[in-house]
């Protein structure tokens, strides 16, 4: 019997206890349901929760700790010459046993001790499973019985059930917060490790990026340089090109959609524009690398310009196209939200439609538009796939969009793809880059939120 079945059985038990609880409440009320503190259904939920929650908690705990406990027990039963082995070798033995247990491919020669240990491991797993089942059912039935015994007329089942729901909701929201916190802290600690090897100033202000480190002492040309300036200028350059493409096109299409388009046209073209946002970035990436970049290079050749085949221009333009729906959709919402009364006011003074838009609607919507653009910028800075494919790897410190540049995200990818040691500065540099990137986008988002909030205060 699979452990998943236990949960199914428990769920059925919960459903049953719901009905028992509800019936018990009706019985207790002696037919007058209104004399109860809560509706009968709440007593049902109350009983079901008492039945399910303790058993599920023990189930979760069991799943996490089972393998560690069994392993320790098995090791304790091994002969002394094995238990006294070094930690690494002991790990190998344990792996051997586990492989044997789950019928994986194992080493050709198996000593009888290990085979015996594997046998014991299997036995214990079976015992553990039985025990888990017994404990879960006991807790489920016991919990339900306890809850049933507590039901009386004045029992506040509704309050208890709703408090439980509240606790559940709080738990869900804290999971998201703690995950974010965990990511930030892990990036931060690894970055601190990196900054112990490479000074912060070298990283932030160094002009050369060449993250090769020596694998063995005395290797040639492997000193490594971790100056992040070329990466950040590359990121800025590509993002700037993207915004030059996305902001005017996005804004103009937003104005058209919100102010000029007929409702039918708007209903048709807005979703179509938003389809752009649904295209996976990897598709944009090879579109940039295989279609746009060669086109730019050929166009440059015919003009006598040397455009490298992995240019900032190609990556930036394609990224800009990807961001258009961001800018247009957010701006369109903001422009649409400008009260009609302001437009009426301008029209009644004899303003034309374009005067109304330029002098009243856009200024009123401007903070919201700016916030939308800032969100788009942080999206552009964090974008990875397009630049990996189309912008290149050479860390050139240049402002020329026709040359190949590299960005922070591209370098993080290349640093962490393939085999790496987790204590070399080369790998840790990725965390430092990630940290700086995180701080930049966070600041941009905070500014955007601040601007949006200020905007909300304006006409209410």
């Amino acid at each position, binding site marked *: 019997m699979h452990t998943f079945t236990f949960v199914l059985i428990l769920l059925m038990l919960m459903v049953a206890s719901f009905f028992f609880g509800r019936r018990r409440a009706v019985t207790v009320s002696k037919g007058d349901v209104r004399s109860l503190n809560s509706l009968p259904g709440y007593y049902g939920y109350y009983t079901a929760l008492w039945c399910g929650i303790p058993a599920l908690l023990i189930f979760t705990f069991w799943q996490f700790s089972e393998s560690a406990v069994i392993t320790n027990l098995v090791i304790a039963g091994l002969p002394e010459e094995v238990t006294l082995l070094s930690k690494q070798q002991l790990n190998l033995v344990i792996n051997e046993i586990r492989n044997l247990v789950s019928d994986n491919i194992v080493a050709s020669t198996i000593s009888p001790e290990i085979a015996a240990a594997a046998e014991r491991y299997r036995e214990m797993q079976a015992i553990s499973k039985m025990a888990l089942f017994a404990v879960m059912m006991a807790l489920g039935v016991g919990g339900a019985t306890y809850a049933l015994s507590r039901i009386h007329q004045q029992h506040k089942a509704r309050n208890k059930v709703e408090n439980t729901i509240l606790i559940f909701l709080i738990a869900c929201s804290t999971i998201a917060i703690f995950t974010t916190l965990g990511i930030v802290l892990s990036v931060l600690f690894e970055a601190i490790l990196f900054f112990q090897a490479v000074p912060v100033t070298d990283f932030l202000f160094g002009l050369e990026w060449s993250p090769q480190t020596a694998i063995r002492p005395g290797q040639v040309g492997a000193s490594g340089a971790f100056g992040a300036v070329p990466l950040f200028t590359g990121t800025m350059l590509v993002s700037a090109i993207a915004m030059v493409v996305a902001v005017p096109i996005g804004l103009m299409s937003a104005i058209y959609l919100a102010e000029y388009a007929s409702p039918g046209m708007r209903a048709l073209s807005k979703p179509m524009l938003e389809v752009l946002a649904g295209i996976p970035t990897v598709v944009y990436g090879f579109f940039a690398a295989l279609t746009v970049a060669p086109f730019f290079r050929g166009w440059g050749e015919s003009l006598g310009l040397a455009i490298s085949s992995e240019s900032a221009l190609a990556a930036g333009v394609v990224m800009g196209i990807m961001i258009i729906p961001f800018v247009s959709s957010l701006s369109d919402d903001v422009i649409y939200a400008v009260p009609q*009364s302001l437009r009426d*006011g301008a*029209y009644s*003074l*004899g303003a034309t439609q374009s005067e109304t838009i330029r002098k009243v609607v856009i200024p009123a919507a401007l903070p919201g538009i700016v916030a939308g653009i800032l969100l788009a910028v942080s999206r552009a800075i964090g974008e990875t796939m397009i630049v990996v494919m189309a912008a290149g790897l050479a860390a050139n410190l240049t402002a020329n969009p026709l040359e190949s540049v590299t960005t922070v995200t591209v370098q993080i990818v290349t640093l962490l793809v393939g085999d790496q040691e987790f204590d070399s500065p080369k790998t840790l540099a990725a965390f430092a880059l990630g940290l700086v990137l995180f701080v930049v986008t966070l600041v941009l988002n905070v500014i955007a939120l601040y601007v949006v909030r200020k905007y909300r205060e*304006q006409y209410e």
Partner: protein
Amino acid sequence: MANTVNMSQYNEQAERRKQERRKQGKMRLSTATVTRDNRETIGNVTVPDYRIRCTDINVFYGDKHAIRNITLDIGRHEIIAMIGPSGCGKSTFLRCLNRMNDTIENCRVTGKIMMDNQDINDKSIDVVPLRAKVGMVFQKPNPFPKSVYENIAFGPRIHGLAKDKVELDEIVVTSLKRAGLWEEVKDRLDQPGTSLSGGQQQRLCIARTIAVNPEVILMDEPCSALDPIATTKIEELMDQLCADYSIVIVTHSMQQAARVSHRTAYFHLGDLIEVGATEQIFTKPVHQLTEDYITGRFG
């Protein structure tokens, strides 16, 4: 203490007025001579010195016939009040006079609206100069989210009324003075117009309208969002403004119509029921519907 005394005095007065009105209402019962079913306009719709002459105006919102065959003159230097229950078409009629109905989808207006020997309902007419001539004040104050100064300067700028900054300043100051707002805002012309109180915002909107030098001002329930004190100020202002402008006001307050207007037009479900001098409408209405409305039997 002083307040409570005032309040009780006020209540007494209000009570007395209510009784008087009840008495008048009873008297009026016998004065109405036209039955409810008659939908012909009663009273004289024309005036000799007219500013706008509307003939057979019909408005449709899609299939809905919102107002029917309305013929009415707007006199020079007069305040004409439009009264009637909600949905009777008075605001719709008002919005015909400066073509604001153009901004509403599938709204169709037929009929002739003559102003300065031009049919302003003709689609070939440019609405920009028309709206400069016929200004509008809305129910809810709608200052632009700009400074007080910029709110007033907006109109003159788009119509190129000022040669330079000095002239523009002058227009702003005179408009604010004429709207009776100057003393209250002269030290904070650079603050947002939305930071003013409701009554001040509405006077700011009136000043904004005056700044483009209109000849007719349309007011769509200008006081319905204001408290009694701000209402009094606006009413006083209208009284002064009618020396230079024609004013058309839509109102739900019959007291307001009686207080400020010279002529009153009563609308009912898209029909213009009765037009006449305000005093006559409120004391001797001819049509049964008019009487029902002003005696508070419905609406």
